[in-house]
């Protein structure tokens, strides 16, 4: 049986061409998967061809998105993608220990992130660089995690953007608890809900939906009527495992079993994601939460820079999804409607290049954390035990002489 690499990238002279070109049944299925459009219930406001389609239910939620606002969303996505590509490249150059690419998920993240109000709270997993950007987190502040100089350093309260959570699904329960707190604080519903009420959004992937914590998060949020939007980015792959390995049922339909609405939106449609998330957040702020959103999207790059997707999926699949690119459809729409000219696109690209250059410059010059950092902030209250360990170790280090280590 030829390996996937042999099939997708046959080695010269590695065997009869007929054998090398024959896909395994799994690869055939994977290839067919790429033709999935998300089903009849997919909410979409902007088609892959850049056509605006109307939706009686969701158009009101993007009525304010004029040409300028749409150019803004386009710019957001281009910047985020450029930064993502730069970080990916820096990992390849050894400047980052690992990178978790978001390529292909810009619309899901920018659309949902821009739907949040400043007072709302967001709980990310570890791929939500685009959401972080919309929350005002400096992209540079994400780098410490991946250069392994810290575990995340942004101001979580100021940005209302929780630390990245790497253990799959943990953050869903944490978000449920936070949303319960919003409700207990009287921040849900009321006559002036539009001005004062709060909601929480929680990000996780298709793989996470198999975790007990996600199930429990659904249960908790439901029985406490928590103002929580579950935002599942179904990017079709949990490392090497397709969504079919996680569920028999389209993921958004799971919500029904928990007693709250579930909706599937085209995750590559930034307008659709913005509208659906605004709707869901509003439902939550008015006391009708929780809501599950399945953003149907595609992980166009590897799971992380340590991953090799050629081992488990066809490049054909990627090629099909490239036609549904989240940025390209906005560019086409802007151009076709005369809402942007080439000068605009060139400017955005130049700005993105500057953004990436700054990121690169910052990354290359990041200071090494000092050894005493090992011992810092394990506890909120002073720890004589750790202070003693720190002093002993620093004194040991000092024994090697100044300037050495």
């Amino acid at each position: 049986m030829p390996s996937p690499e042999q099939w997708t990238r046959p080695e010269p002279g590695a065997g009869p061409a007929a054998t090398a070109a024959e896909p395994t049944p799994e690869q055939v299925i994977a290839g067919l998967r790429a033709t999935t459009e998300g089903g009849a219930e997919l909410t979409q406001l902007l088609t892959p061809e850049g056509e605006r389609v109307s939706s009686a239910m969701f158009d009101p939620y993007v009525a304010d998105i004029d040409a300028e606002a749409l150019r803004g969303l386009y710019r957001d996505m281009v910047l985020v993608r450029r930064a993502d590509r730069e970080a990916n490249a820096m990992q390849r150059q050894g400047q980052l220990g690992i990178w978790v690419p978001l390529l292909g998920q810009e619309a899901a993240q920018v659309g949902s992130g821009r739907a949040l109000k400043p007072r709302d709270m967001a709980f990310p997993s570890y791929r939500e660089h685009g959401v972080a950007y919309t929350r005002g987190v400096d992209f540079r502040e994400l780098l410490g995690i991946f250069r392994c100089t810290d575990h995340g350093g942004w101001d979580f309260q100021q940005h209302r953007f929780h630390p990245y959570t790497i253990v799959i699904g943990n953050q869903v329960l944490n978000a449920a608890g936070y949303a319960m707190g919003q409700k207990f604080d009287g921040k849900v519903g009321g006559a002036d809900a539009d001005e004062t009420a709060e909601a929480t959004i929680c990000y996780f992937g298709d793989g996470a939906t198999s975790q007990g914590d996600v199930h429990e998060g659904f249960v908790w949020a439901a029985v406490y009527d928590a103002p929580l939007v579950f935002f599942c980015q179904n990017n079709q792959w949990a490392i090497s495992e397709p969504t079919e390995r996680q569920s028999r049922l389209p993921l958004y339909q799971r919500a029904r079993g928990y007693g709250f609405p579930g909706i599937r939106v085209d995750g590559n449609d930034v307008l659709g994601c913005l509208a659906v998330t605004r709707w869901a957040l509003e439902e939550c702020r008015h006391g009708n939460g929780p809501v599950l959103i399945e953003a149907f999207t595609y992980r166009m790059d590897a799971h992380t820079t340590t991953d090799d997707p050629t081992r488990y999926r066809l490049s054909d699949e990627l090629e099909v999804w490239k036609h549904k690119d989240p940025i390209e459809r906005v560019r086409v729409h802007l151009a076709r409607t005369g809402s942007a000219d080439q000068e605009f696109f060139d400017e955005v690209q130049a700005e993105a290049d500057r953004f990436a250059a700054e990121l690169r410059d910052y990354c290359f010059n990041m200071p090494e954390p000092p050894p005493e950092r090992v011992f810092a902030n394990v506890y909120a209250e002073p720890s004589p035990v750790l202070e003693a360990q720190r002093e002993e170790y620093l004194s040991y280090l000092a024994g090697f002489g100044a300037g050495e280590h």
Partner: protein
Amino acid sequence: MAAPVKSTVDTPTSSVQNLTIGKALNLGLRRAMEADDKVIVMGEDVGKLGGVFRITDGLQKDFGEHRVLDTPLAESGIIGTAVGLAVRGYRPVCEIQFEGFIFPGFDQISSQVAKLHYRTQGKVKVPIVIRVPFGGGIGAVEHHSESPESLFSHIAGLKVVSCSNPVDAYWMIQQAISADDPVLFFEPKRLYHSGALKAPVETAATPDPLFASRVLRRGDAATLVAYGPSVKVCLDAATAAEEEGRSLEVIDLRTLSPLDLEPVFESVRRTGRLITVSEASAESSLTSEIAARVQQECFYSLEAPVLRVTGFDTPYPPSKLEEHFLPDLDRVLHAVDRALDW
């Protein structure tokens, strides 16, 4: 959130109440909830029922359903939502019904509760208390008699304490709740309602610090160190030994992480002999840790090896056999004999 509701139990400014450990915990929780309306109690059956051991009895009636939450039946959910509530500014007190059921919550405890403060370089505090009834001797079915405290004291970022008497129960639960770090609070379940342990709790007194061990009984022949339910076993052993003319020192550790071993070192330097007592299995346990630290600090004072009287390295047996598993007075005194005869 409504203003804190005045408890139906009056607090005279200076009052001495004769309480069991269970009642002392209940009163301590009540005081903590009165003092800070961000303190909420959450767990399975903690509301209307008052908990399967009645430790939270009456709290929901007095403080309301938003402060005493009967949660769905999932321990990861209890801990995981408590984390979010803590991030929101609450001080959740979670009850795990029996120690054997804590493991679905182990992931949240180890991955989030213990590490959020470190991960965020101190920007996020996690002031959660997780109350865990633990230990055997109640004739229970499987998973209701275990002693998993070493699994938690091993995890950096957590604090672990255990009370052994009503006075400590009353104060330590309040101190744990007001601490800014997460605290695992192990309660000796078989002693909850022990009338013999009833003690006057002076609610106007100044308590000892939370993270400090305490010498309960002075002696010079050997030192016994224990925590939780084993403290009573050691005190009984010391009383019995006294009748044989042997004076044993007894130390209640109280805090399991961080350990406060200075009083133990000081004691061992005088007695030269240490016996540690715990219901937990011995291997890789708190008793191992104490032995390692004592040999390091008291090497030249030791007249005998540090001996351990513990549960065996087996799962907890069917409870018809637990008398063989649990350290008792005779096994402790046997160890004292061995140490003195070394």
